[in-house]
């Protein structure tokens, strides 16, 4: 299949931006799965970093093929999700949030100080193995899976525990188990996103997975909304395209992400795309609301 020349040019010129759209979409979904269960994890950037570093090392040092590297890069994020998720998810929500912010800080200092991870220079010369079609196929696959989950009884349970965890538990939903499953799913999605990001830019560094990216990922989901999995992706795409217009002012771009979070929480608690997925026949849904 050959593309028209103008389209080929366009894809080539904006390749990095197009890749960021896909990767940020995956990160937005990683944020969504946790928020949709009424928990707040700020570890997505940390999980992404773990996926990026472990994936890059597996490719460069162990020479594994990419189709093995991609799933293997989820191992470290999932391990850390379990280490901090198991104790905190039974407590009130602030514990997970605190522990995940802490995780981001401590991993950044680890990347900086461990020589095998390149220190402040990061890792260079990672083979560019993540193709555009792979990134978007994985995004589409994850989105489809989350839509199917959202429409099933699991989705109903997630919504119930988001609205009122006590009532949800009283209805027989194992809230802690759902929360842990959501956090592990989030770690898998973010780990894959990190592995893809590392294999499309050839360079990763310790500061790409710290506090600012963690907050930026939260702004994707809060701007779009968490009623359905399309909304956070829309938020991510909007916030990925917007800074292209203000490239020269990176500090103000971060400030904008922060301000969007503040405004979204205060005035727009359902996000810009607040609609929720329909799961039951019209008649029943009308009665239940």
């Amino acid at each position, binding site marked *: 299949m050959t593309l028209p020349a103008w389209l080929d040019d366009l894809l080539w010129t904006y390749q990095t931006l197009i890749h960021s759209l896909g990767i940020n979409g995956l990160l937005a979904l990683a944020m969504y799965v946790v928020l949709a269960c*009424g*928990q*707040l994890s*700020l570890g997505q950037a940390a999980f992404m970093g773990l996926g990026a570093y472990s994936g890059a090392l597996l490719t460069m040092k162990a020479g594994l093929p990419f189709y093995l590297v991609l799933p293997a890069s989820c191992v470290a994020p999932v391990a850390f999700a379990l*280490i*901090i998720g*198991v*104790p*905190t998810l*039974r*407590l*009130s*929500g*602030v*514990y997970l*949030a*605190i*522990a995940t*912010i*802490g*995780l981001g*800080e*401590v991993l950044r*200092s*680890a990347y*900086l*100080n461990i020589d095998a991870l390149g220190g402040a220079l990061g890792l260079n010369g990672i083979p560019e193995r993540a193709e555009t079609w792979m990134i978007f196929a994985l995004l589409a696959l994850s989105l489809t899976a989350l839509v199917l989950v959202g429409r099933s009884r699991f989705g109903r349970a997630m919504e119930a525990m988001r*609205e*009122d*965890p*006590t009532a949800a538990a009283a209805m027989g939903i194992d*809230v802690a188990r759902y929360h842990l499953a959501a956090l592990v799913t989030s770690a898998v999605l973010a780990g894959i996103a990190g592995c893809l990001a590392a294999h499309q830019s050839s360079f990763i560094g310790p500061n790409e997975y710290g*506090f*600012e990216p963690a*907050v930026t990922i*939260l*702004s994707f989901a*809060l701007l779009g909304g968490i009623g359905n999995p399309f909304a956070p992706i829309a938020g991510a795409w909007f916030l990925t395209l917007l800074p292209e217009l203000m490239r020269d*002012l990176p*500090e*103000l771009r*971060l*400030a*904008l*992400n*922060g*301000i*969007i*979070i*503040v405004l*979204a*929480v*205060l005035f727009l*608690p359902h996000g810009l795309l607040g609609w929720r997925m329909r799961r039951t026949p019209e008649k029943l849904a009308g009665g239940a609301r």
Partner: protein
Amino acid sequence: MLAQQLVNGVLLGATYALFALGFTLMFGVLRVINLTYGFTFSAGAFIALALTRQVGLNIALALPLAALGSGLIAVLLDSLLLPRLRRRPSAELDSLMVTLGAVLALYSLMTAWLGPDIRRFPPGTISATAIELAGVRVTAAQGLILAASLLLVGLLMALMTTTKLGLAIRAVAEKPDAAGLMGINTPRIAHLVSLLSGALGGAGGVLIGLNFNAIQPYMGESMMLRGFVVIIVGGMGDMRGALIAGLALGIIEVLTAGYIDSSLKEMVAFAILVAVLWTRPQGLFGRAVGQRA
């Protein structure tokens, strides 16, 4: 060697305790994890820097003024961000998110304004002399840190335990609605707690700035990891726990840096946080926690 390390550890720990005390006070009374708290730390350091550098004030005057300034910033931020969330069912996480967004915006605006470079107090801000006692060196900066921390912690403890105002604050922490019915002006107490904790955060920023003589906008951000460790180990909202845990963390960090490797400081702090979460999530001194209905 060990004695010197322990002294350095206690001094660092005193600042951590001071910083964490404001953080835990805020959580204990307002029931909010307020992440803009880290910003008051940076703000305090920068206000003191401006006062000593531009105005030429003595550090003994600049420190209380910087604390007051950061306290007022905290009151302003809190009254802008928090009141409208207080009655929401998801208040806990919403206020965490709103302060998270706000603090990112504040740090990046501050960096855009002042630049990311490390700044230092003007030479002579604090005398370079050191006294030596039984082989242990204590610099004037460390002396000031210890004196200021002891004074502030002492004042706060006295306020909380012996005055009527302290009683009112503790009543609001225990049962805000009942306290309101007893005639306590709860919104005013909330402002006062913001002022107090912001001032503690700002004072912590000045003291850490003096200790390491390095000030930059994001310094509050890296301090928050210590704040988290201290309030979780000490028990959320537990002031006595924060004091003990803060001191302990300072000592552990200095010993780690002295005997193993200084790059492990953060990792050790985080390992302690995770270990406490696994074994004793209510904190070493705290009461039981769980999902509140």
